[in-house]
């Protein structure tokens, strides 16, 4: 069983469309991080959320942490080809010193 499930696994959309990626778990996390990973490279941190219900914005990207701190979402407005990549959520359990990574969402934005 996966601790963190992401959906959808694959997403292909046209430039200018909006999209939402979901990260769900039955576990409560003390924090959750979103990363973007390019082929052959390491994950690059986008944002960290720590408070239930927290919303953070990074230009056209909006991240939300669920009230119960079990889930999170990433919403991209007016997607651009440069947004193409693998998006990963990763959660830290209370008292643990490691991150559990989600299964990933591979986004393709078609010009």
């Amino acid at each position, binding site marked *: 069983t996966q601790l963190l499930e992401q959906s959808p696994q694959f997403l292909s959309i046209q430039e200018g469309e909006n999209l939402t990626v979901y990260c769900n778990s039955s576990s409560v996390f003390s924090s959750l*991080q979103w990363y973007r990973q390019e082929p052959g490279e390491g994950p690059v941190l986008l944002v960290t959320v720590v408070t239930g219900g927290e919303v953070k914005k990074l230009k056209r990207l909006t991240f939300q942490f669920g009230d119960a701190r079990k889930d999170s979402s990433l919403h991209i407005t007016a997607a651009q080809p440069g947004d193409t990549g693998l998006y990963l959520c990763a959660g830290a359990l209370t008292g643990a*010193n490691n*991150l559990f990574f989600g299964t990933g969402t591979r986004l393709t934005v078609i010009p």
Partner: protein
Amino acid sequence: EPEVTQTPSHQVTQMGQEVILRCVPISNHLYFYWYRQILGQKVEFLVSFYNNEISEKSEIFDDQFSVERPDGSNFTLKIRSTKLEDSAMYFCASSRQGANTEAFFGQGTRLTVV
């Protein structure tokens, strides 16, 4: 901008050989990590290191694996006797105050065991 650096970028080794993967974490960070990612699979935690000792390790991190901080800047992962299934991308990461703070990842070392 400070970054985590890893060497080598690629390593090919014969099964049964020892390999050492090297990492230079961000200088003011206190927590260090190794993760691996088998091709097409998710990123998996191996080990975390704080205050010169292992703070957590996963089931993957068995007796074949060890970590060391030999000096004030380097952080190494040693695999004593490599197996074919050790082939993966290995990522080093560091954070200032543990897993609840931002973890910054290196570019990775692609290990191929033949």
